[in-house]
């Protein structure tokens, strides 16, 4: 129901803007829309987790309902939707001032709202058809948002690259979908799961489907080697959009992957766990090694997102043996969304005030902008995994779950590789912290002043979230666990 309510809001906003040309109205209305979405998403999550309530929506048109059911909400989808909506809210709040010098803001907010709407749609979808439609909608709105500043060459190039690569991914997903439809005659998640459960021994055909799904959804999720769009798209997009991309859009890919793999292909039969674990470790390592020498702050954060995706993949890969691993991964999806969104938004403040993304020009900027600097520091420490901040807990649960695997050699090697990556990442986060806080001020930052209050509100909300989750992780851990169990539960 949320996306529906959403779409209406989007239209209202768009309409309003065209009629009145009162710019601030659009901004605040969009933010209000985001807030309502967030409130509804939280309510749904609450009902699903604590009330055992399942929301279901079937297409009223007969031809469509042949394809699938429509929407269905379980704990995982509700959990994801809350993450998507909350980061959307923060980004929208932040954009009010951040985007004030840009034109075409109506389109911007409509696209942003559409992006969040489609992300929520992906989360709530109950069949592959609905999922795919929303997935593409999410893609289209994010390509356009990356290219939003279309008079510059960099965003346009990045968006083109993103478009091409994501198109290949979508093709793969579409192929996999049609193969599944051909096999089972339905697109409904549960229908496919049941049909495949009754199927005989796994055939090569199904393995092909798995590979296509991992590769296809992997493009949005930015696993190596499908990641190269991300490191161009993130720096080129407006910062609020980088926060959205890094915080939640790539998680859309992770969600789709988790949903389809766990529901359709029991690991005990199909053994994709090894493959996902290798992908996870390769993704982490490649991203970290390249991140060590980046000079562009947003590009560095983009690589760090890839690293975190690797970590999440590692957690997902062991989800079938140990719910703890998947719980950690889901918890990390939440935490990483908050930390990375905050890091990007703070970097955006620096960019907004100083006008450069190069680390060499941002020396000492945090001293000039102490509030932004503190928030940025906390986000980087959380990304580093310093307790008691939220990033520590999710990393800890993932890595602990890996070590707890029954086979100590497998678990031990994977866990140690993950920990070495944690150490590598410490290196570049610490370097960034040193540059923005400790290095002598560069020429460009001499004049810098603190960011405007509207931007700071978004930063402070996210910072408080990091601290609260860090000091008392229990409720968030529990919800992540419920989310993880809901997707595993389908198997049993």
């Amino acid at each position, binding site marked *: 129901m949320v996306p529906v309510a959403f779409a209406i809001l989007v239209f209202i906003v768009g309409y309003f803007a065209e009629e009145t040309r009162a710019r601030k109205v659009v901004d605040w209305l969009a933010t209000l829309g985001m807030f309502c979405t967030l409130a509804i998403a939280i309510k749904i999550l609450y009902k699903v987790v604590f009330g055992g309530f399942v929301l279901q929506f079937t297409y009223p048109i007969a031809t469509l309902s042949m394809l699938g059911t429509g929407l269905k909400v379980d704990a995982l989808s509700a959990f994801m939707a809350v993450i998507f909506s909350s980061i959307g809210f923060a980004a929208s709040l932040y954009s009010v001032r951040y985007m004030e010098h840009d034109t075409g803001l109506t389109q911007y907010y409509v696209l942003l709202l559409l992006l969040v709407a489609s992300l929520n749609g992906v989360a709530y979808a109950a069949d592959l058809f609905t999922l795919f439609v929303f997935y593409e909608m999410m893609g289209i709105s994010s390509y356009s948002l990356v290219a939003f500043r279309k008079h510059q060459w960099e965003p346009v190039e990045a968006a083109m690259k993103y478009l091409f690569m994501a198109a290949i991914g979508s093709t793969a997903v579409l192929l996999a979908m049609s193969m599944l439809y051909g096999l089972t005659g339905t697109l409904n998640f549960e229908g496919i799961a049941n049909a495949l459960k009754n199927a005989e021994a796994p055939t090569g055909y199904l393995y092909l489907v798995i590979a*296509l799904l991992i590769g296809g959804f992997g493009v949005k999720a930015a696993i190596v080697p499908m990641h190269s769009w991300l490191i161009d798209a993130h720096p080129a997009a407006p910062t609020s959009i980088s926060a959205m991309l890094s915080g939640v859009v790539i998680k859309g890919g992770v969600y789709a992957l988790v949903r389809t793999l766990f529901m359709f292909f029991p690991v005990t039969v199909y053994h994709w766990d090894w*493959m996902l674990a290798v992908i996870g470790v390769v993704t982490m390592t490649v991203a970290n090694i390249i991140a060590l020498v980046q000079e562009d702050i947003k590009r560095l954060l983009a690589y760090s997102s890839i690293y975190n995706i690797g970590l999440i993949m590692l957690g997902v890969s062991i989800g079938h043996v140990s719910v703890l691993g998947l719980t950690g991964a889901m918890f990390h999806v939440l935490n990483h969304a908050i930390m990375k969104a905050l890091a990007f938004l703070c970097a955006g403040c620096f960019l907004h005030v100083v006008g450069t993304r190069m680390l060499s020009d941002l020396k000492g900027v945090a001293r000039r902008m102490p509030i932004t600097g503190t928030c940025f520091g906390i986000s980087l420490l959380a990304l580093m995994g*310093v307790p008691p901040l939220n990033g520590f807990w999710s990393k*800890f649960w993932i890595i602990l779950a890996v*070590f707890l695997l029954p086979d100590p050699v497998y678990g031990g090697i994977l866990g140690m590789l993950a920990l070495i990556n944690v150490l590598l990442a410490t290196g570049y986060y610490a370097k960034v912290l040193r540059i923005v806080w400790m290095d002598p001020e560069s020429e460009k930052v001499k004049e810098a002043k603190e960011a405007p209050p509207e931007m700071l509100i978004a930063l402070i909300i996210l910072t408080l979230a990091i601290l609260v989750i860090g000091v008392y992780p229990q409720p968030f851990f529990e919800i992540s666990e419920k989310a993880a169990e809901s997707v595993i539960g389908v198997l049993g």
Partner: protein
Amino acid sequence: MLPYAPWLCWLIPLGFAVLIPLADKIHPRVRDGLAILGSFLAMVFAASMIPDVFAGKVTIWPDGKVVGEIPYGQSVSWINATVYVNGNETRITLGAGVLVDPLSVFMANIVGIIGFLIMVYSLGYMAGEPDMRRYWFWMSTFIGSMILLVMADNLIQMFVGWELVGLCSWQLIAFWFKATTPSPVPDFKTEGEYNAHCGMKAWIMTRAGDICLLIAIAAIGWAQLKAGQPLTFKFMDLQESTGWLRVLADVGLLVPISVLMFGGPVGKSAQFPLHEWLPEAMAGPTTVSALIHAATMVKAGVYLVARMVQVFYLAGESAGMLVALKPLFITVAWIGCFTAFLAATQAMVSMELKKVLAYSTISQIGYMMLGLGAGALLLIPAHGYVAGTFHLMSHAVFKALLFLCAGSVLHATETKYMYEMGGLKEDMPITYWTMVIGAASLAAVPGLAGFFSKELILEILWKEGQLALFTLATVTAALTAFYSFRMIGLTFHGPKSEYIKKREEEGKHVHEAPPVMWVPLVILAVASIVLGWLGPYYEAFATSGRFWVAHELGSEVTLEKYAHYLTEVFATPTAALSLLMLVIGIVPAYYIYIKRKIDPAELVSKNVVLRALYTFLYNRWYINPFYYKVFLNGTQAFSQRFRKLQTGILNVNVILMLIGFVAFIAYLVFYLL
């Protein structure tokens, strides 16, 4: 104890730390007062637990209600979950708790008392510095997190404190990152950049050790699951259950895992091979070096070893597997002993006053590790534990004293190089005499605290015939005596250096420190004199509680016991040998550096062997350059080359992507076949 003392002693400084930026808005004096008050309250609450440990039972003041015995734990629910792990429903209980036992109360008091003294000293030492808000914030956070670390009743909560103190250490080492004076090493432009680099080096090197610690923690979790126990990381549970130990031993991982557990302390306490960060940590203000890098944070590693040796030993004892644990204890003892020697040799040639002290800290911590490891190795863990932690205490006192003395010298001369000092004896009498006491205690002059505690450690080695360890430890004692008095001689004796003379011509006379600085010096100096004589009382304190009762040490101090203690320290062959080593060390130092009869530069330049040795030691056995070359430059060069793969050309990206697809399919098809 005072009500809720085990909680409040760390919650108060942490809470006050958050308030400090706000207090700064009111008035700088309020801010300073708040910081001092926070550390004072921490000290009071920590100290209120001492009588409980002596009594063996916990009494809540003021109504005198007895709530439990030592070890006494309190815990609240923090993370509780029932999760499917490896297909079984597993209960994960992670409480936030405190454990009141001799070790934790001992450590909390060292942090509390020395922390308070150093906070007071900071009032004088850091007076007029800008950025005091930042200083007080990190100092208070440090005191709070360090007490959190030692009071925690489980490994995870301890790890939270463990990382926080590391963070404080990073920030405080790099405290003077704004300094614009030329850098002491050529790689950086300003001293500020150098300081920031030193802080980062400390953070990353200690984190490398933390990674090992995490692996060990996770592996213990694995073993608990395998043994069918619920997942818990409480020290008490680990100590009392043996299942996890047996499982680890069965798969042959007991020794690797326990040694990895020791990796965390190796990083934190700057032991070989992760010792290279501590000399650089001296870039921070002297108060920081004294509190964090001498008296407390670097002892966190010793604390954890003491704690875990106890856990491993007691669990191993009830499982009947002490023999299997021997390699662990041997490793601990040897790493400690080798580090003691390694660092002592480097201290002999160091040019900076504070670096001498840093090397000597590394070296002395080596002794503590040696005591803990050797004690457990020889199946007398209680003796090793008492000796190791007693040395920890005496070292905390005399090293804090030495650092604070160094601080007042640095304050007066504004240089850190010893060859730019000299002849300060008359100008700074209080500092001089207190520093001599500190140095003599470090060199283990009989009657001072350092002598007693070091004797106890050597005694253990001697008794059980660990000749190799004993020899190395005794030789190190001679080196220690040499560099201690070299330091005193270079700083206070001989003629005044050109630098000092020039300053005096400019009208900047060397002056004695203000009372707020010298009063803590005198207190610490008195403590370094009397502490050693209180040995049996410390033994009674340290062995209170039910765990040590079976280990032949009672908790009453009798005259007979006291006499036994004194004979053990003074009237044994080891005492005679130590005395000999002391003389061997002091005599050359006296002639070269105090009387200045022989010119050391001439001595070194004439003799080829000495020159080679000097270069070797001065370059820190080439370990530091090696680390830079391999880990820092090596990784960066590799990354630079590796990033070229990321061309940014769409064609290449798509081709790589397609290769990815092919690889995924190939893998799965391969699996099918």
